[in-house]
């Protein structure tokens, strides 16, 4: 177990280095640098542009720039945002907290709904199964931006039930109730795709499990049908879902751009897009690195969870 962990963590280092190099090259080879937006500004002349680029170190050759970035990253210095002139760590910190709340709550909603729906889809009467199948197909197909706007239009414009966006009531002190009230709509919209996807996945896994020999044995023993499904089939069918969840790690920091935009949620997705438009390299590099770390960590966590969920799997 310990050697497994150590081996996996060591294996992550070259992966992260390669990822950082690829991201660095992609960002820097995109046309127009951070100062391009000033080319149309009558107050900024080409001499100013050269001076600014020099001060940001953008005139160094790529290998030098990359080495400088890597060196300071390793010492824990993530640099200063070109756009906001603030330390990158502080900027990311604010946004990650917002995104974590949104994504975690939506994953929770998705899990709570997707599992019963998946079970229903596999075991209910054929007519009901078809209804569940159609509903989940609809859930997969509906675009998030449309669903978000419709939810806002119905629940916050027509019926003033939910807030029109944001994370909290402006001017009010923090309260859990207020936060949950603001979280409900964006988290539910974000969960829709997951609910639809996971439940379909679970349904097919469950159908496969239910055809296995051990299920026939359980039935022969005279176990109640719900017990067979819940105890024997579901446990096995859930395994692939753990992999799926592990891959969500990147989203915890990557955010959910469309949902965040529609619901004015101050998360990472919006920060990333704004930083891309401004070519704010320090913010982008740090954010992408964090995402890769979390994807790797998520996969590792999924592997570890396998061992718990399925005692047959041994981690070596």
């Amino acid at each position, binding site marked *: 177990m310990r050697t497994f962990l150590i081996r996996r963590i060591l294996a992550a280092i070259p992966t992260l280095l390669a990822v950082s190099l690829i991201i660095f090259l992609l960002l820097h080879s*995109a*046309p*127009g*640098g951070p*100062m*391009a*937006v*000033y*080319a*149309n*500004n*009558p*107050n*900024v*002349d*080409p*001499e*100013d542009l050269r001076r*600014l680029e020099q*001060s*940001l170190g953008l005139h160094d050759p790529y290998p030098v720039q990359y080495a400088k970035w890597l060196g300071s990253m390793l010492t824990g210095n993530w640099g*200063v945002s070109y*756009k*906001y*002139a*603030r*330390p990158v760590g502080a*900027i990311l910190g*604010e*946004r990650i907290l*917002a995104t974590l709340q949104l994504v975690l709550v939506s994953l929770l909603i998705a899990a709570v709904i997707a599992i019963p729906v998946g079970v229903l889809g596999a075991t209910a009467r054929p007519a009901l199964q078809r209804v569940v199948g159609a509903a989940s197909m609809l859930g997969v197909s509906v675009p998030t931006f449309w669903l978000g*706007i419709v939810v*806002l*239009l119905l629940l*916050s*414009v027509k019926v*003033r039930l939910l807030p*029109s*966006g*944001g*994370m*909290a009531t*402006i*001017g009010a002190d923090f309260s859990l109730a207020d936060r949950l009230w603001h979280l409900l709509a964006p988290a539910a919209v974000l969960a829709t795709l997951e609910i639809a996807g996971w439940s379909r996945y679970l349904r097919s896994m469950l159908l496969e499990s239910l055809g296995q020999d051990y299920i026939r044995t359980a039935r022969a023993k005279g176990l109640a049908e719900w017990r067979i499904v819940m105890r024997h089939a579901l446990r096995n069918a859930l395994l692939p879902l753990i992999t799926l969840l592990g891959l969500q790690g990147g989203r915890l920091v990557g955010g959910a751009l469309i949902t*965040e*935009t*529609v*619901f*004015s*949620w*101050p*998360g990472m997705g*919006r*920060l990333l897009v*704004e930083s891309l*438009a*401004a*070519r704010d390299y320090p913010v982008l590099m740090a954010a992408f690195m964090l995402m890769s770390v979390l994807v790797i960590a998520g996969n590792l966590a999924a592997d570890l969870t396998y061992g718990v969920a399925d005692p047959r799997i041994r981690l070596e």
Partner: protein
Amino acid sequence: MMRIALAVLLACLALASGVTRTSAQAPKPGGQIVHGSVQEPDRIWGPVTGLTVSSEIGQLVNGHLIEIDDKLDYVPSLATEVPTIENGGVSKDGLRYTFKLRRGVKWHDGQPFAAADVAFTHSVLLNPAMDVRGRVGWNKITKVETPDDGTVIFQFSGVDAPFLDRVATLGILPKHILGSVPAADLKTHKWFRAPVGLGPFVFKEWVPGSHLVLVKNPSYWKPGRPYLDRIVYKIVPDANALLNQLETGDVDTRVRLVNEQIETVQKLPNVRVVATPSVTPWLLWMNHTVAPFNDKKVRQALAHGVDKERIAKTLLGGHVTPAWGLLPPMSWAYNPSAPKQAFDQAKAKGLLDEAGWKMTGDGVRAKDGKRLSFEIANIAGEQERVQVLSFIQQQWKQIGVDARIRAVDVGQMWGRMLPQRQFEMAYSYTGRLPDPDMSSHYLSPELKPTTNFAGYANPEVDKLLLAASATVERDKRKAAYQRVQQIVADDAVYIFLYWLNGTTVLNKRVQGYKPAPGYNEFWNADEWWVQ
């Protein structure tokens, strides 16, 4: 004439939206408004930002020596009068400006405002450790003198004709807060995110990605102002969500409404829509260093081949006005008699024939075996721009010109294509100051203009522009600029398309808003009030 027409237009708009009916009431102090913005500010000081939204917050919080009003005139603010040659504030040679400061004005933290703050602000502009975007003009100042607390004198090495434009947008920095900060730490100092200013509103909080809160400055130098107790500047990144919030009243005001939403917003019962004339033209840049744009006749023909009136009226729903040159009709230097290449396909065809571009079998003209075919670069993302270009493309096809639209990214357009002149034709707006100086767009490339992306070079224009920017006498400048407008219009340097009006949406309870062309929509926010 145009000025009168504009005034009439504005009056009609005002009548239609019911301004005159309600503005008869006396302003009532108190209350708050929530302003919705799709963009978030970065740093709240004009010289270190390229974002209009940042300048908007700066307008509310920072103090300025002078301001620009809704008639594009300078008005005093922290200076007690606008320096001119007549009042002795500007020396005859235009190399010395003296500002008399308003006394008794206090910073938001209670410290007194003095001439030293102004001199300090200038030193920060030129501080090498500070990432000030543009130093154009400021670097011509050789000395800043403060003979007493109430006087600032700027001494120049050469005339900077648009200097007062720059002064009007420069927020003054507090020396008592930033003066002792080491140069290297200045750039990241928290003042630029939480400014202590001299303006009508005091900065209270900024929750990133969510909102900013500004509250009334109780000791603002204008007695009784501002009327509002609070302005909440709310970030709503999705334009449709913002529309919802205008409808529900969660948001009271929004500026720069996108054209495609104007008709929907006009139907909302609780808001009014005000059009603001703009000083920012949209145009087609042409690269004069490559064929066929190195031929004046081709450029003129292309200009004659575009029906601007139809673009403005039909395609863009009347939300824009056709543009014929770099200067808006409301500018004091505007030349109404400069040639206009009106829509005339027969004339366009004739000019192309004269230039040697003959019609061929496939409907596209050719000369010496080369087809009259080129690429228009367009920043991807807005459907409206593609519609405008597709319309132009169709019109040019009728005169035998093959134009292809190429979608590019913002960085590609402004970082590579235009500044390095790696384009044939490009579609965008162009940044302008209210001052009519046109050197940025028309000086020959060797004189280092900032935005002459065409590579246009004309010795007579150079002479006129340099002479005009070497004096502060308005009559001399006006005569030179009128002549320049004549020449560049005949040369068809660029194809100007339209002035994109600003559209402001206000909840009907918000009063006192006055549209100001080409300037910050918050310029008179101290006069806004709510019913």
